[in-house]
């Protein structure tokens, strides 16, 4: 290439850099400070731009897109309010380790700091909610920064990054440098290979275990399909029971014989009891989050702990571990599987018989049981039916945040990774629907369902307009109980059943709402009608809002009440009104 061929405007550089990083879709919203970039988007057709209705939607769409494909999600927003609206999805992506590149416009360089129209300190505001961010001050640096942004977003522990580009830089002409010609920043070189010595130690410990449990997390999904492959192989080889965090569902199939179900606050009894009583815990790509551990000083008191994580700061952060292994989950698991096979004395699976016997007893407690009804749709039943009617299809599930999210995690069986998109760390109501739109953009032929609550769905409902515009047949399956169910459940547990502002008195007519947007609305109120209604939803080649009226006062069990340990779960058959009211003591109430 000659020198002049490499000369481009900043806006051209942005598009070229995106293309060179393999970007096919971006989610965005135009505004004054990004108009030059939008002008370039207009003049090309390699990258498809999805016009959202709110920048938060763009961020969650990019997250859903990223999580379902393993690629980097890209969003484009303008300065000021565009950037501040992006903060929620950025923090969401940071907490759930989702690779996201957010390109934001900024007021022209000479106006920075003058309180110009639609100015905000974007790099200042997004510094704590990104893995890294850049303000571009020289057009000749733009290409390098964008390439580096993609590298930082997807390498190591993935996360969101922001590239803030002042408008004058977008207009200015400079040199384009292709990704291969850009040196990487020396200070950021994440370690991806685990220390073999530590892995050997871990395998030796696992061979001697009599009550082991594998606790896997979102890191297995982030590491890519290879990681799930090796995880399954490891479970098969070792015969160990496996549980997973909310974020890790699908890495090991829910139909697998060693599957204990999800663990944590609303996890199964068998998963939490196994965590509590185990002698060796193998934590793979998870981070001992407070929703997982319960009371820390009673967390798995008698186990030796192995922790595989790509982020050294996750090690020993909440829970002290005995064998830390820093590296990419796929690489470490590959080594682990190889070393397990190579070990001269193969471990005797029979030594785990007693352990599996205990697990069978815990399983028999049937901790996900609920009282069925012929008159009203139980929310758990709705998820079960949705699962049964979609499991043979190419299905992707997203959720909002609340009771419906936990029921979806409990009752929907995930067989493959990257099929389950939910806001775990930040707990962002309003995540699920735009995330589903992003998933549908990436997988236009697949069935994409947002399992929602009636409160959460109203937080980003405006993206119906986007779904209709692009003919994205996303299905919104609302478990409508007219309450912010999880808020209400906690008020029942903690606040003497005083249901302060958790009841929605003016519920929109979701069927009419769907129609107003140009979608299809379906309402279902009787258990007997549910299957037909779900089939109708699946067969509708357009965005659908499914208003599933469920039992209003159902609560989500089992549950580790606040401040309790894994072996102090509140099980559904014990969750009488009185038990619920007294589950958390006064001290626990203050701290929740």
């Amino acid at each position, binding site marked *: 290439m000659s020198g002049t061929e490499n000369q481009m405007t900043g806006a051209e550089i942005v598009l070229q850099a995106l293309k060179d990083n393999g970007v096919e879709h971006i989610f965005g919203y135009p505004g004054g400070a990004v108009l030059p970039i939008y002008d370039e988007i207009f003049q090309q057709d390699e990258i498809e731009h999805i016009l959202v209705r709110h920048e938060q939607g763009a961020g969650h769409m990019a997250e859903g897109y990223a999580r379902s494909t393993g690629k980097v999600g890209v969003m484009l927003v303008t300065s000021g309010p565009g950037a501040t609206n992006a903060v929620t999805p950025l923090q969401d992506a940071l907490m759930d380790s989702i690779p996201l590149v957010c390109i934001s416009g900024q007021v022209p360089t000479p106006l920075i700091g003058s309180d110009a129209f639609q100015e905000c300190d974007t790099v200042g505001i997004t510094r704590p909610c990104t893995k890294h961010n850049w303000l571009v001050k020289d057009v000749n640096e733009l290409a390098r920064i964008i390439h580096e942004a993609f590298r930082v977003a997807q390498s190591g522990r993935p996360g969101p990054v922001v590239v803030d580009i002042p408008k004058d830089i977008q207009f200015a002409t400079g040199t384009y440098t292709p990704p291969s010609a850009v040196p990487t920043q020396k200070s950021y070189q994440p370690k991806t290979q685990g220390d073999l010595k530590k892995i050997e130690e871990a395998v030796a410990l696992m061979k001697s275990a009599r009550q082991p449990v594998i606790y896997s997390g979102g890191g297995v999904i982030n590491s890519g399909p290879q990681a799930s492959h090796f995880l399954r192989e490891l479970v098969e080889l070792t015969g160990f029971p496996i549980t997973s965090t909310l974020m890790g569902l699908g890495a090991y199939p829910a139909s697998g014989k060693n599957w204990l179900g999800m663990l944590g606050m609303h996890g199964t009894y068998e998963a939490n009891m196994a965590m509590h009583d185990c002698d060796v815990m193998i934590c793979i790509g998870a981070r001992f989050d407070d929703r997982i551990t319960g009371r*820390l000083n009673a967390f798995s008191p008698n186990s030796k702990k192995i922790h595989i994580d790509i982020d*050294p700061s996750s090690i020993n952060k909440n829970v002290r571990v005995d064998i830390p292994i820093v590296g990419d989950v796929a690489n470490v698991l590959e080594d682990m599987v190889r070393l397990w096979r190579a070990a001269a004395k193969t471990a005797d699976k029979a030594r785990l018989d007693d352990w599996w016997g205990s697990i069978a007893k815990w399983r028999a407690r049937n901790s996900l049981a609920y009282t069925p009804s012929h008159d009203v749709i139980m929310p758990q039943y709705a998820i079960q039916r949705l699962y049964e009617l979609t499991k043979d299809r190419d299905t992707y599930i997203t959720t909002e945040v609340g009771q419906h999210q936990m029921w979806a995690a409990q009752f929907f069986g995930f067989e493959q990774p990257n099929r389950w998109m939910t806001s775990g760390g930040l707990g962002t109501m309003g995540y699920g629907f735009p995330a589903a739109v992003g998933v549908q953009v990436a997988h236009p032929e697949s069935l994409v369902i947002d399992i929602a609550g009636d409160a959460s769905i109203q937080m980003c409902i405006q993206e119906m307009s986007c779904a209709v515009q692009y003919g994205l047949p996303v299905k919104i399956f609302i478990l409508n109980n007219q309450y912010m169910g999880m808020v209400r459940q906690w008020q029942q547990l903690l606040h003497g059943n005083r249901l302060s502002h958790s009841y929605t008195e003016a519920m929109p007519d979701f069927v009419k709402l769907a129609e107003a947007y140009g979608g299809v609305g379906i309402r279902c109120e009787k258990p007997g009608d549910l299957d037909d209604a779900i089939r109708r939803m699946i067969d509708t080649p357009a965005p659908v809002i499914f208003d599933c009226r469920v039992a209003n006062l159902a609560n989500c069990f089992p549950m580790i009440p606040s401040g309790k340990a894994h072996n102090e779960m509140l099980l559904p058959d014990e969750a009488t009104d009185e038990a619920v009211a007294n589950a958390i003591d006064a001290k626990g109430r203050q701290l929740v």
Partner: protein
Amino acid sequence: MSAHLQPTGSAYFIAKETELAETHTLSVLVDNEPGVLARVIGLFSGRGYNIESLTVSETEHEAHLSRITIVTRGTPHVLEQIKNQLERLVPVHRVVDLTVRAAGLGHDRPIERELALVKVHGSGEHRVEALRLADAFRASVIDANIEHFVFEITGKPSKIEQFIAIMKPLGLIEVCRTGIAAMNRGPQGM
């Protein structure tokens, strides 16, 4: 089992700190790029860590490297987290806990030095006394007229504390301190 619910803390479990807090000095080698200091101090404030002293300056101009020296206080567990969290920042090259390193080398603590400018009202009999004390502390006079002195003093933080305390009754006007610069003894670098 839930039948025997015990009185406890919370799902946001707040552990009682049983470890004792220690003061450590960290050296952080960073790319000298815009916002890098904000990233470091934002990390401290955002995660609730303490900063007792902070100094920063470019140390290798060609390589655009700056060295940040932070004195922080926390339990060994927190100090380990601070180091790990700092290393996670993209422009951070290396983090060395000089206090831990010093212990490993068999030293009490790393070399820690601070510079202070101390302005003292100096007239009458206090004038001679201030000068005499400054001499004892090896502080040098860098500005003076018949009513004041400005002393420059370098040394361990404790020495500077002591000098300031002594100057107080003699008419201390103002003090400016650089914060601690530190490195380990011996031939190796950080």
